[in-house]
């Protein structure tokens, strides 16, 4: 148990010490909210969609959680590069505990990042419909964060060096994000796109955030919860198998 805690703490400390990175990583979501939120706002309203900023903010929160979470999973590549991975690998503790500790740490950091984006969005005009539901939002934020930290960990466990990194960002993270309904409503999509979006776990995360923050959901919160939970269990199994096979 203490193994999990100490590795969780390590992630938090590293995050806290990289203030430049925190500020830097807020730039992108802020840009999205301002450029798209205000830029597309008029068109969206004319098309009968209502307030686009409200629609967009949960998507942007999910985006910053997605990025922070996947990257903190991928940090294993850097641990390998700098040698700390060996320290964890020879330690007489179970691989599962090491992995869970790291991933909970990464997930916590991603949730904090998501909360900061939520606060910024409030400052530029976003309104939450029911403040009580924000507690449920937090639960979903954590699920998204944990899921994608596991995802990053699984990938990093099979990746041998930093070279593959850009590839992952372009061919995995970007599509995950753009094909999640973070930007557009899921109604009236072409069939192929609609199926892709429904196969993307992030769509359920975005949907849940939208459901709890502005009361708009496509799949229903229960479906969102069950899908996310199912994928987490799947990834937990896959990631711990792959992680236990790492060599340094």
């Amino acid at each position, binding site marked *: 148990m*203490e*193994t999990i805690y*100490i*590795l969780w703490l*390590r992630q938090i*400390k*590293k995050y806290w*010490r*990289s203030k430049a990175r925190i500020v830097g990583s807020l730039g992108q979501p802020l840009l999205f909210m301002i450029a798209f939120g205000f830029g597309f706002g008029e068109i969206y309203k004319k098309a009968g969609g209502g307030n686009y900023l409200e629609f967009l903010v949960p998507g942007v929160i999910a985006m910053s959680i997605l990025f922070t979470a996947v990257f903190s999973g991928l940090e294993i590549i850097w*641990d*390998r*590069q*700098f*040698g*700390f991975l*060996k*320290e*964890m*690998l*020879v*330690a*007489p*503790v*179970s691989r599962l505990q090491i992995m869970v500790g790291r991933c909970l740490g990464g997930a916590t950091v991603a949730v904090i990042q998501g909360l900061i984006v939520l606060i910024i969005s409030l400052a530029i005009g976003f309104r939450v419909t029911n403040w009580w539901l924000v507690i449920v939002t937090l639960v979903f934020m954590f699920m998204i964060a944990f899921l994608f930290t596991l995802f990053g960990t699984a990938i990093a466990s099979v990746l*041998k*060096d930093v070279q593959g990194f850009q590839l992952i960002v372009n061919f995995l993270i970007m599509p995950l994000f753009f094909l999640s309904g973070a930007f557009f409503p899921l109604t009236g999509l072409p069939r192929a796109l609609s199926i892709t979006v429904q196969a993307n776990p992030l769509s359920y995360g975005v949907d849940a955030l939208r459901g709890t923050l502005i009361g708009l959901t496509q799949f229903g919160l229960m479906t969102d919860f069950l899908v996310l939970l199912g994928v987490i269990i799947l990834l937990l199994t896959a990631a711990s198998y792959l992680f236990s096979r790492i*060599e*340094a």
Partner: protein
Amino acid sequence: MIIEVKNLIKKFKDFTAVDNISFTVKDGEILAFLGPNGAGKTTTIKMLTTVLKPTSGEIKIGGYNPVTQKDKARHSFGIVFQDSSVDDDLTAYENMYLHAVLYGLLRSKRAEKIQQLLEFVELWDRRRELVKTFSGGMKRRLEIAKGLLHHPKILFLDEPTQGLDPQTRNHIWEYIKKMNVEEKMTVFFTTHYIEEAEKVADRVFIVDQGQIVAMGTPDELKQQTSKDNLEDAFIELTGHIIRDEKADGAGFMRQAGRMGGWRR
């Protein structure tokens, strides 16, 4: 026998780094594993310590197989790696504490033990500084302090004293020797300071190009080569040529391998 190795082989693609070695180490022994650069020392240690999977061969460490009984094997040893294994973004103290938790040091003993070892390697005053601000020698000392934090049955040390000044090296070997005597801890180490091996090792294995070319006490090896110190005996046994200058295929491969940033 606390370490038993039989016909151990490690290949990286078609390059054989460890070429069919067999040996045993007795409980409580101090063993020096010597050899020129690229001989396969680190690769061997990594296989003994569950970090790398052997291509073939058998290993028993503390009675357990590091391939099939990883967890049990891990409980029997501690290790100081040749290259860094600390987290640069944490402080010296945090690195020590994390290690103490991973190795199950009792909560009540942690603070005292960490202080004792950080004082021993003269880093106590710098304990709150991030490791990335440390000099090479300071990082090495931290690695050693970390490795000595718990008292395993077998301690692996891969060039523990590389780059340290003579006083510090002496100081550290005295400490290790004491742990060896008081707790009957087996020590398996590599070094390029041959005089260290001559001074502390009970027995010496000399490896070259992945194979063991000589085994024996320092005295036996000196006799065998009729030299009066171990360093000369070592040079006699492994040849005078610097590996990297050898133009044959294997030598070239080794050099290319080392320069090519294979350390993943």
